[in-house]
C-alpha cells in the first residue's frame, strides 16, 4: 500500500472519488484536526437528549400507572399480567428489565415477554430514535471532511461501548457518542472519561443510575418506613458494582490493571449518587432529589454511601460527588490506563498484534501530555508501524460498509437499509452485546460466512450503481498505488461494469485497511 492509500484507508474511512487526493498524506491527516465538526448537520438534525429522555420519562409514567392498576386488581383477587418494567423504580430501571434485551432481530420473539406498554415504547419510540441516530452517524461518516478524526470517534465509542439493546438504552444509546465522545475526541482523555461516565446512556446501561448506598439517607429511611420502602423499592436495592467494575476493567486500567474486588466495591460505593434526573416522578424521587430535566446528570446525595473510601491503596475522604470524581481523575492519569489505551490504539493502527515499540511510543506521548488526545494522534501518525504495508487490518463490517458507500459516491442513506446492512454483515451499530465493545482483530470478522455476506452485499451495492461506475478508474483512486496486478486484471476482465465494481469492493486490498 502506498502512503496515500494508507492515509485514506487505514487512517481515514476510505476514499471518495469526488474528493481531491491530498499532496501530503500526513499533513492531510493533521489538518483534519481543524476541519472536524463535533456537531455536524446530520447530528444536529437528529433527535436530541431532551426529547429522547422525555419519552423515556413518559414511558415510565405510563408503566407506573399500569402497575398501580395491577396492584389494585390483585388486591381485589383478579389475575393480571406481570408488572410493567421500570414502574416502581426509585430511580428509573426495574429488575424486570435488567437482563432483558429486546433487540431488533427477531424483534417479535424478544418482545413477547414484555407488557404492552413496554412493547409499544420499544416499537414506536425507542426503535425510531435508534434508527434516526444510526442514520445521522452513517451520513456524517459518508461526508465528513475529517475522516481520520471520525475514525477516532468510532474508536472511542467502541472503547466506551454501550449496547443499545435494552429497553432503556435502545433509543438513547447513540447519544453517548454524539454528546460525550465527539466534543472530546480532540480534547483530553480525562474530559472524555468524565463526559462518558456522567452520560445518561452509560449510567442506565451499566445500572449505575439505580445504585444505592446501603447506609445512605434513603436506605436508612427505607428501613424505618415500610411505605417508603414499598414506594421506592429500596429494600431490593443496594450497591450496583457494574459501572465501577467496567470503568476499571474496560475504560481505564484494563483487565490486567491490578485492581481487586475490594477496589471495585469501594469505587462503586464512591459512585453511589451518580444518577440520571427526571425519568421517574413521585414523593420518593422528590426526597432523593432526582427530579429535574429528564436525562441530565444529577448527583443525588441522599443515596450516596457516606464515609471515606480506599481505592487502589489511595484514600478518598471527599464528600459526595467529589469523591468518585477524584477516583476517576486518578484513574485517567494512571500509567496503566495509558498502557491499556496505547495498546488498543496500536492494535487499531499497527496490526492485530500491537507492535511493542509503537505501544511504548504512544504510551510516552500519552503520559507526557497528560492524556492529550491530539498529541497521542500525532504520535500515531508519526509511528512507522502504522505505515507498514505488512500489517493490514481486516476491515470490520462497519468500516467496510462505510468505505464501500463512500467508494460508490453515496452521500446519504436511509436508516432502515443502513441498519439492515450492518445487521446482516454481523456488526449491528452500537449493539456489540457487551460493554467490551466489538473486537478489533481479523479473526472476529474474516470468517467464511461473513465473507460470503460481504460478497453478496457488494454485488447488490454495485448493481445499484447501474453500470455507471468504471471500477478500472475508480480502483486506483480508492487504493492509490496499492492495487495488485491480480485485482486490476480481475476487474478489467469482469463481464460488466457492475461485476467489476463488486470485485473491487471485495478485493483483498479493499477488505483490509
Amino acid at each position, binding site marked *: 500500500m502506498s502512503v496515500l492509500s494508507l492515509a485514506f484507508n487505514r487512517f481515514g474511512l476510505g476514499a471518495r472519488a469526488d474528493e481531491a487526493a491530498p499532496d501530503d498524506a500526513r499533513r492531510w491527516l493533521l489538518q483534519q484536526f481543524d476541519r472536524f465538526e463535533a456537531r455536524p448537520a446530520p447530528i444536529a438534525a437528529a433527535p436530541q437528549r431532551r426529547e429522547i429522555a422525555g419519552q423515556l420519562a413518559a414511558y415510565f409514567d405510563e408503566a407506573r400507572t399500569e402497575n398501580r392498576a395491577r396492584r389494585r386488581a390483585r388486591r381485589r383477587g383478579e389475575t393480571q399480567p406481570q408488572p410493567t418494567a421500570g414502574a416502581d423504580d426509585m430511580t428509573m430501571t426495574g429488575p424486570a428489565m435488567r437482563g432483558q434485551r429486546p433487540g431488533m432481530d427477531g424483534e417479535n420473539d424478544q418482545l413477547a415477554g414484555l407488557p404492552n406498554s413496554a412493547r409499544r415504547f420499544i416499537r414506536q419510540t425507542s426503535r425510531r430514535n435508534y434508527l434516526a441516530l444510526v442514520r445521522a452517524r452513517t451520513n456524517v461518516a459518508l461526508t465528513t471532511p475529517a475522516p481520520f478524526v471520525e475514525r477516532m470517534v468510532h474508536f472511542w465509542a467502541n472503547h466506551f461501548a454501550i449496547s443499545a439493546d435494552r429497553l432503556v438504552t435502545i433509543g438513547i444509546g447513540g447519544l453517548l457518542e454524539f454528546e460525550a465522545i465527539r466534543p472530546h475526541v480532540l480534547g483530553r482523555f480525562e474530559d472524555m472519561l468524565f463526559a462518558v461516565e456522567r452520560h445518561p446512556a452509560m449510567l442506565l446501561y451499566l445500572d449505575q443510575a439505580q445504585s444505592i448506598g446501603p447506609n445512605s439517607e434513603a436506605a436508612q429511611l427505607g428501613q424505618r418506613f415500610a411505605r417508603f420502602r414499598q414506594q421506592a423499592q429500596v429494600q431490593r436495592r443496594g450497591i450496583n458494582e457494574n459501572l465501577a467494575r467496567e470503568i476499571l476493567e474496560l475504560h481505564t486500567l484494563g483487565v490486567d490493571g491490578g485492581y481487586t474486588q475490594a477496589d471495585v466495591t469501594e469505587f462503586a460505593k464512591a459512585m453511589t449518587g451518580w444518577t440520571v434526573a427526571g425519568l421517574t416522578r413521585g414523593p420518593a424521587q422528590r426526597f432523593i432529589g432526582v427530579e429535574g430535566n429528564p436525562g441530565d446528570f444529577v448527583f443525588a446525595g441522599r443515596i450516596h454511601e457516606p464515609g471515606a473510601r480506599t481505592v487502589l491503596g489511595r484514600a478518598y475522604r471527599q464528600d459526595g460527588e467529589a469523591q468518585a470524581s477524584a477516583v476517576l481523575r486518578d484513574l485517567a492519569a494512571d500509567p496503566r490506563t495509558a498502557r491499556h489505551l496505547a495498546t488498543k490504539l496500536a492494535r487499531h493502527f499497527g496490526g492485530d498484534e500491537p507492535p511493542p515499540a509503537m505501544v511504548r511510543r504512544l504510551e510516552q506521548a500519552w503520559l507526557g501530555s497528560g492524556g492529550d488526545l491530539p498529541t497521542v494522534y500525532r504520535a500515531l501518525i508519526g509511528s512507522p508501524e502504522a505505515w507498514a504495508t505488512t500489517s493490514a487490518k481486516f476491515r470490520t463490517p462497519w468500516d467496510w460498509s462505510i468505505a464501500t458507500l463512500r467508494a460508490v459516491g453515496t452521500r446519504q442513506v436511509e436508516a432502515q437499509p443502513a441498519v439492515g446492512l450492518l445487521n*446482516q454483515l454481523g456488526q449491528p451499530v452500537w449493539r456489540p452485546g457487551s460493554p467490551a465493545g466489538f473486537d478489533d482483530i481479523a479473526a472476529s470478522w474474516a470468517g467464511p460466512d461473513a465473507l460470503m455476506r460481504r*460478497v453478496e452485499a457488494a454485488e447488490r451495492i454495485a448493481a445499484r450503481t447501474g453500470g455507471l461506475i468504471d471500477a478500472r478508474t475508480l480502483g486506483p483512486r480508492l487504493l492509490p498505488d496499492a492495487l495488485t496486478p491480480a485485482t486490476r486484471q*480481475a476487474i478489467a476482465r469482469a463481464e460488466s461494469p457492475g461485476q467489476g465494481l463488486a470485485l473491487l469492493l471485495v478485493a483483498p486490498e479493499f477488505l483490509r485497511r
Partner: protein
Amino acid sequence: MYDRRTFLAQSAAAAALLVAPGVSVAQAATDRRFVFIIQRGAADGLGTLAPTGDPGFAPLRGAFAQDFANGIRAGDFFTLHPNLAEAGRLFAAREALFVHAVASPYRDRSHFDGQNILETGGRAAYALRDGWMNRLLGLLPGGQSRAIAVSATVPMVLRGAREVGSYAPSALPDASDDLLARVGNLYESDPQLHAAWQQAMQTRSMAGDIADAGGRNGAATGQLAARLLSGAGGARVAVIETGGWDTHAGQRARLGQQLRGLDAMLGALRTGLGADWANTLVVVATEFGRTAAPNGTGGTDHGTASLAMLFGGAVAGGRVIADWPGLAQASLHEGRDLRPTLDLDTLIASAVAQHYRLDMARAARALFPNIAAARAVEGLVRT
C-alpha cells in the same frame, strides 16, 4: 444466526431501499410488447447456434462441436444447442428468428465499452448519455408507454429523460455464480481469504444453491417479467439483464447452464404472457462474440461477431438470417473471430420499427443516431 436465504432477501430489500426506484404508470397506446434481453459478458454465438453445415466448424471447435450431435436442427446449415428446447419449439412454430454473424459497431474487446455501445446505441463508448430503449419510448404511439427494467436498477439501455421503472423483488433468485467463481480466483494467492472462501463455497454448495441455479433463476425472472408485461395495464417495453456469458474456461458446462437458464426464461415469458405473446417481440443480444477457436482452458476469449435471436408471436420466424462469412482461417476477423456481416444496430432498428410500425429512417436516427447504413432488414416481424 441467519440462514443465507433470509440474508439474501433482507439485503436485497435493504439494497432496494437505498435508492427508491420511480415506477411510472401511464396509459399505453399500443398493445405490442418489446422485451430486450441483454447477454452481458459476450455470449458465444457459435456455441449457441452452430453452423454445423460449415465444413470448418467441427475441426475448428473440437470438443465443443460434440454438443451439437444431439442439437436441434434449425434448417440445413445450423443446429441449436440441445439445451435450447423451448427456443427450438418456437423455431418450429415460426416464432423464433436467428440472425448470425451480427455485431454492434464496436470492434475492440472490452466488455465495459462494448456494453456501453450496445446500450447507448452510439458509435463510440460513452459518446451518448442515454439508452436507445429510452429514446424508443418517445417514438411509440401516444408516447406514453410504460417501460420497466426487471432488475434492481435501470440498465443503461433504458436510462434517459423518460421515466422508467425497475422491479426486482427480494425473492428474485441470485444470479451471481459467475461473480463467486471470480472472487474465488481473486483470493487464490491470499491464504487467509482463500481458506475462508473455500469453506464458504463448500457450505454454499451443500445448501444446493449452485445446482441448476441457471434454469430456476431464468424461469423466475421470465415469470416476473411476464407478470409485469401482461394485461392492459402492463408495461409495453422491458429489459432483462443476464450475466455469466464470459466463458473463458470450462465453457461446455457453463454455457450449457447459461443456455438452459435462458431457455427457461423464454418458456416462462411465453407461458406467462398468454394471449399477449402474439403481440410480443423479444430480442436477445450480446455486446460482442467470442473467438472462433477454443483456448487452452476449455473456453473462448473475447471476439467480434455473434448471434442475435428474435422470439415472439409477432416474429416472422422459423428461419435463420445470415450472410455466412465462413470459418476458414482466412475468413475470420483478424484471423480469430467470426467476421461480422450484419450490423446489430440496423437489425434492432428494423425489428423495432416493424414491430411498432414506425418509419424505419426515423426510428434508426432516433435509436442509433450515427448508424452507418440504415438499409432495413425487411420482414422480421409479422405485420
